[in-house]
């Protein structure tokens, strides 16, 4: 059936406050469409005549819970029965499915719920209003007297399921979405609402890109330059072609592709491949040289001012006590469980991509350009992503472009599945920028923090990208200094200086981006300042967070729930950290025990304010996961270089957090009525410094060089 409704009508029905959020919706008048025999009142929901509701997800699912979150928002206002709600990933269609906080179709920056909160609710409310009109017309009763609950539409003794009504929506009906007040919510805020992706992910049926094997698929792996920035000079494929299952070897602009009838054969073929490279423009430095350049810049150069309030240097120099600290944060690979991969087919003037796609607009543009078919002829089928932590989104769409080039080089129109090995992933670049961070702080005779100067050195993520102009101001990439330059602490004399470093190694956002290191430096140095002031670490922070009530509230909540100040067993220590990122406020209190010099992470108590908690259990899961992911790198992980080659290769030498490392975690969620903010990333930044401060409390050692095992800490 085809119901004529218009975007204009929808906008008229929407509230003024939310109208801005629907900008970018399909302007082609396709708000109502017959879609495979289902009623599709708007681009975000389909209702079948059996009553099944399908929520169309503009965000991909990498584990962060968007399948559940977006479904909750829409089903809340639709008053659907949760068990009848299914999901489908949206096609690449930027105009319709734009992330309104990013300006492109894509996921990142912990924005999925924040940018969808009104849009998906309105889409659900709009669909419900059409079902109500259908029932009103069918039953001859006033629409205003009709009730909708759990997928049933009722009036007096009359009732109908959604499926019975989709064929009865009157011709010309226009949606009239009326949003619920928070007091009327039945799904938003319900901690018992089950995840939408649990069943498929516990029986092996969930499909990731790695599992996509279209008819005629050819498996490929790519031999890339062993040093970043190297170029291919020659290759010899004769031994590779001898490997059973290898079908071809081709040069591509991204490296040499080995094609085979299965992944194993492709990997074996690559082992046998011989390649020669020109490294004249490549990264050839070793770790100590790279670090020495950072240190020399900080020692000898003025740097770029990222923030300057008052006279930090004067206040620190004139202070009764000063604190100095120098922190080191290594390069880090994301290492999602599913190694990067996708399938690309270029045929008959069209490109088809199967991908756990995080950045649809960029990937559609890049694959369309590289393949020559244009973005308008490039379709993306999004499937589950086996983690990302930022890696699957970058301005080059690197692995999708590689697959496209491999498909073009093969040239026979067959789908090519390009797979990265774990070694490719660990050595593939797009790292969290290595950062050195010096703090000087001054405390007056009364124990007040009067001055702070952070000096940081790292490589920009955004410089030279299409978003560089928006993000890099006067040479300062806001993401290089976030978490420091925008601190919520009130410090009268406060300065941040940035040294912007260069390297051929590509950098990328890594879960919590700049906050992944700045939160650690801020919160460990803050503990040192509190100690120098002779004050309790919580009380010291409370004073300078007086102007930041939400951060202050989570600090107080975490301290209370953790029993701050209470007794601990012999050999234990307790530490605190509080950090705002992605507009979400998180405080954590960590407890560690030390036995024979070995540290064990015992417990972390977290308090979170992310606005209206849409799915409290997903919020808990994200905080648990962010803590675990963050502790992986804090404890053990680093990427280093020798003569431009990455030293690490796979999990045995890029050791992830394991189950025995995982502390007990408690998550306390503030019942806020503010608009929802991010939750995928904000749980990470406070975890490391809370643990570091607990280690100091237990054993008197300040850990300033990460990973901690490089600073003399051993773990059990």
């Amino acid at each position: 059936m085809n119901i004529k409704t218009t975007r204009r009508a929808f906008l008229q029905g929407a509230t003024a406050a939310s109208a801005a959020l629907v900008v970018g919706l399909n302007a082609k008048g396709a708000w109502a469409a017959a879609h495979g025999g289902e009623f599709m009142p708007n681009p975000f929901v389909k209702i079948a005549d059996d009553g099944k509701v399908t929520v169309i997800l503009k965000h991909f699912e990498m584990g962060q819970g968007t399948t559940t979150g977006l479904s909750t928002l829409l089903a809340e206002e639709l008053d659907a029965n949760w068990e009848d709600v299914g999901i489908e990933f949206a096609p690449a269609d930027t105009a319709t499915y734009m992330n309104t906080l990013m300006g492109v179709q894509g996921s990142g920056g912990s924005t999925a719920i924040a940018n969808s909160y009104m849009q998906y609710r309105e889409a659900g409310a709009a669909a419900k209003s059409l079902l109500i009109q259908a029932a009103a017309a069918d039953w001859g009763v006033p629409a205003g007297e009709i009730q909708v609950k759990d997928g049933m539409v009722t009036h007096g003794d009359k009732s109908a399921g959604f499926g019975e009504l989709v064929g009865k929506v009157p011709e010309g009906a226009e949606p009239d979405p009326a949003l619920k007040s928070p007091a009327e919510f039945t799904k938003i805020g319900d901690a018992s609402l089950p995840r939408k992706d649990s069943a498929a992910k516990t029986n092996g049926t969930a499909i990731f890109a790695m599992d996509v094997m279209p008819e005629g698929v050819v498996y490929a792996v790519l031999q890339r330059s062993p040093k970043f920035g190297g170029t291919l000079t020659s290759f010899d494929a004769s031994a590779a072609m001898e490997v059973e299952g290898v079908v071809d070897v081709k040069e591509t602009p991204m490296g040499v592709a080995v094609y085979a009838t299965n992944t194993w054969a492709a990997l074996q073929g690559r082992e046998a491949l011989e390649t020669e490279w020109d490294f004249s423009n490549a990264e050839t430095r070793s770790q100590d040289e790279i670090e020495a350049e950072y240190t020399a810049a900080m020692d000898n150069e003025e740097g770029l001012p990222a923030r300057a309030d008052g006279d930090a240097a004067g206040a620190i120099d004139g202070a009764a006590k000063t604190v100095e600290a120098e922190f080191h944060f290594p390069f880090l690979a994301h290492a999602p469980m599913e190694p990067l991969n996708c399938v690309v087919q270029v045929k008959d003037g069209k490109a088809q991509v199967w991908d756990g796609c995080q950045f649809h607009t960029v990937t559609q543009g890049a694959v369309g350009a590289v393949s020559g078919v244009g973005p308008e002829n490039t379709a993306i089928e999004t499937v589950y992503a086996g983690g990302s932590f930022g890696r699957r989104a970058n301005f080059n769409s690197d692995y999708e472009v590689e697959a496209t080039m491999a498909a073009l080089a093969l040239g026979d129109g067959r789908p090519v599945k390009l797979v990265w090995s774990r070694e490719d992933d660990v050595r593939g670049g797009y790292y969290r920028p290595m950062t050195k961070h010096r703090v000087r702080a001054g405390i007056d005779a009364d124990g007040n923090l009067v001055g702070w100067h952070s000096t940081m050195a790292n490589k920009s993520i955004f410089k030279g990208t299409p978003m560089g102009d928006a993000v890099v101001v006067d040479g300062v990439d806001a993401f290089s200094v976030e978490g420091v330059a925008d601190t919520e602490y009130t410090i009268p004399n406060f300065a941040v200086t940035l040294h912007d470093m260069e390297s051929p190694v590509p950098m990328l956002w890594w879960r919590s981006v700049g906050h992944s290191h700045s939160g650690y430096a801020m919160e460990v140095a803050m503990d040192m300042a509190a100690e120098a002031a002779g004050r309790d670490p919580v009380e010291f922070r409370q004073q300078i967070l007086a102007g930041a009530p939400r951060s202050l509230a989570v600090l107080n909540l975490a301290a209370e729930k953790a029993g701050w100040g209470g007794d601990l067993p012999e050999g234990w220590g307790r530490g605190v950290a509080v950090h705002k990122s992605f507009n979400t406020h998180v405080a954590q209190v960590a407890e560690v025990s030390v036995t024979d010099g070995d540290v064990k992470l015992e417990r972390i108590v977290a308090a979170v304010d992310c606005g209206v908690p849409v799915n409290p259990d997903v919020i808990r899961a994200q905080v648990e996961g962010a803590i675990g992911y963050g502790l992986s790198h804090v404890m053990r992980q680093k990427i280093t270089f020798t003569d431009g080659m990455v030293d690490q290769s796979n999990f045995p030498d890029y050791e992830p957090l394991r189950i025995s490392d995982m502390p007990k975690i408690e998550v306390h969620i503030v019942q806020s009525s503010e608009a929802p903010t991010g939750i995928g990333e904000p749980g990470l930044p406070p975890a490391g410094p809370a643990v570091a401060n607990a280690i100091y409390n237990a054993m008197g050692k300040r850990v300033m060089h990460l990973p901690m095992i490089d600073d003399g800490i051993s773990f059990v």
Partner: protein
Amino acid sequence: MAITLNINGEEKSVEAPPDMPLLWAIRDLVGLTGTKFGCGVASCGACTVHVDGAPTRSCQARVGDLEGAEIRTIEGLDGNVAQAVQSAWKDLDVVQCGYCQSGQIMSAVGLLSENAKPSDSEIDDYMWGNVCRCATYTRIRAAIHEASKRMET
């Protein structure tokens, strides 16, 4: 060469060199995709299957050594222990990205088949080789305890 594998109770003939890891035969040749590739060096457990009932890293087992063995993947799980584990996993919403969870579940079924009431430290010891980058570990522990309870009823 043609090798016959018994996977989930069915005889499957695959054309593969004998040193091909079972993982790739299961996935690319047989087409069962629930078993995952994570590291290729037995360091993450995403590829865990059961061989003659024992959790085994399929990225290291070679197809040439497995003729006559009973291979079970996530798709072929059944029985009381598997049902308890999978239902507990689902009810506790253990998963996040989900990519490692087939391997986690295969290991958890192995654990509970050997030890119906494991302690936290026994869980940690047995599950140590199964990496979850989303760090769902606290829920994995909780789900194994819950499955243990469900097995009693």
